[in-house]
C-alpha cells in the first residue's frame, strides 16, 4: 500500500478537470433543458389557466347576458301583458259604452216610437170613438153626440158656483165680452145657440160667444174667457186608456226588465 504523490496530484487535477467537463457538458445543459421544459410546461399551464379563466369569464358574461336577456324579455312580456290587459279593458269599456249608448239610443227611439204610437193611437182612438159614439148614440138613443156633449157641458155650466161664474164674467168683460168655445168638430148652430143661451143666462148676459175648432181637444168642449176656463171632455177616459196601454207596452218593453 503506497501513495504516489505525483499521481495523487495528477488525479486531483484530473478530477477537477472532470468536474469542469461534466459541469460544462452534462449538468449545465441537462439542467437548463429541464428548466426550459419546466418553464415551457409552466407557460403552457399558465396559458391554459388564462384560457380557462377567459372561458370562465366569457361564460360568466354570457350567463349575465342571458339573465339580462331573460329579465328584459320577462319585463317586455309583462309590459305587453299589461298593455294587452289595459287595451282589453279599454276596448271592453268602449264596447260597453257603445253598447250602452246604442241601448240608450234604442231605448230613446223606442220611447219616441212608443210616444208617437200612443199619440197616434190616442188620436185614432178618439176619432174612432167619436165615430162609434156618434153612430151608437144615433142608433141606440136616437141622439147626436154633439147634442149630448152640449147637454153635459150646459149642465156643468149650470152647476158652477157663483164665485166661479163671477170670475168668468169678469174675465169675459176684460176680453171685450168675448167668450170662446172650442171643440174638435164644428158644432151645429142649434147646439151653438143652446150654449150661447146658457152662457148668457148663467154667466154673462150679452157676451159674444165665438166657436172655434181645435185639434187640441179630443172629444169635448172648452170655454175660455180670459184666463178662466171651463171644460168637459173625454180626455180623462182617453188618459186612462192610454196609461193602461202604456202599462201593457211597458211589460213588453225590454227597458222594464
Amino acid at each position, binding site marked *: 500500500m503506497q501513495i504516489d504523490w505525483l499521481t495523487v496530484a495528477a488525479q486531483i487535477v484530473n478530477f477537477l478537470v472532470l468536474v469542469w*467537463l461534466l459541469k460544462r457538458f452534462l449538468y449545465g445543459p441537462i*439542467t437548463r433543458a429541464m428548466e426550459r421544459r419546466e418553464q415551457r410546461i409552466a407557460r403552457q399551464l399558465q396559458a391554459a389557466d388564462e384560457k380557462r379563466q377567459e372561458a370562465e369569464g366569457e361564460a360568466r358574461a354570457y350567463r349575465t347576458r342571458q339573465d339580462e336577456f331573460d329579465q328584459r324579455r320577462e319585463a317586455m312580456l309583462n309590459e305587453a301583458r299589461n298593455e294587452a290587459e289595459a287595451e282589453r279593458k279599454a276596448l271592453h269599456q268602449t264596447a260597453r259604452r257603445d253598447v250602452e249608448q246604442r241601448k240608450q239610443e234604442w231605448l230613446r227611439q223606442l220611447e219616441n216610437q212608443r210616444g208617437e204610437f200612443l199619440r197616434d193611437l190616442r188620436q185614432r182612438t178618439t176619432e174612432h170613438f167619436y165615430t162609434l159614439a156618434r153612430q151608437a148614440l144615433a142608433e141606440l138613443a136616437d141622439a147626436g153626440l154633439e147634442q149630448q156633449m152640449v147637454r153635459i157641458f150646459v149642465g156643468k155650466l149650470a152647476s158652477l158656483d157663483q164665485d166661479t161664474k163671477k170670475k168668468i164674467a169678469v174675465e169675459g168683460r176684460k176680453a171685450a165680452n168675448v167668450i170662446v168655445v172650442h171643440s174638435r168638430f164644428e158644432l151645429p148652430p142649434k147646439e151653438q145657440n143652446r150654449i150661447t143661451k146658457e152662457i148668457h143666462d148663467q154667466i154673462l148676459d150679452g157676451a159674444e160667444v165665438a166657436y172655434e175648432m181645435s185639434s187640441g181637444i179630443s172629444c169635448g168642449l172648452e170655454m175660455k174667457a180670459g184666463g178662466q176656463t171651463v171644460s168637459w171632455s173625454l180626455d180623462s177616459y182617453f188618459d186612462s186608456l192610454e196609461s193602461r196601454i202604456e202599462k201593457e207596452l211597458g211589460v213588453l218593453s225590454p227597458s222594464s226588465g
Partner: protein
Amino acid sequence: MQITPDQVVFWQWGDFALNATIVHTWAVMALLAAGARIITLRLSDTEKMSPWQNLLEVVVVGMGRQIRDVSQQDPKQYLPFIGTLFLFIAVSNILAVVPGFRPPTGSLSTTTALAICVLVAVPLYGIAERGIGGYLRKYIQPTVFMLPFNLIGELSRTVALAIRLYGNVMSGTVIVAILIGLIPFFFPVVMQVLGLLTGLIQAYIFAILAMVYIASATHAHAGEDNDAGTGHRR
C-alpha cells in the same frame, strides 16, 4: 501480482511516471465527457426526448434528489462536485469488468486525491456558506478543548474515506485475481457481478459521505449536531 494500478507504468519521464491509474482515469474522463457531450449536443426541452437524454436526466435528477435529501438545500451548487464524484467512481468500478481495465479507484493515490478534494471542498463550501468566522467556530464547539479532537476527526474521516474506497475496490480486484487462480471460469464471474454491486454501493457511499461532510459544514446548527456522529459512524 500488482495490487495497485500505480505500479503499471506506461511511460516514465524523470520522477513522473505515466501509470495505469492516470491513463485509465483519462479513459473514464473521456468516456464520461464525450458521452455527455454527444448526448447533450441535441437536447430536447419538449416531452419527446432520446432515451439517452432520458437516462442522463434520470441520473442528474436522482443525484440532485439525493443531495437535497442529505443537505436539505438546493442541490444546484453541490451537483457538479458530488455528482462527478459519484459518476467517476461508479463508472470506474463498473468498467472493472472490462478485461485489461484497472479501475483507478483501486489506487490509493486516486482515492487519496478524491479524499483530499473532499477535505478541501468541505471548508470551501462551509466558508462560502457561513463565512470564515462562522466556519472556524465549528472547530471550537462545544468548547475550545475540543479543537484537537475536531481536527483529528476531520483528518481521520478523510483518511477513512480514502482507505474505504481503495480497500473495497482493490480487494474486489485482488479477490477476482486470486479466484481465477483457484477456481477459474465460474466463481470469478460471480465475484465480478458482486464487484459491480459493491462498486456502485461504494460510489454511492463516497458521494453521500462527501455530501454529509459538506452539509455539516454548511448547516449552521443542525449540521453541528450531526457532525461528529455521522462522520465516525459511517
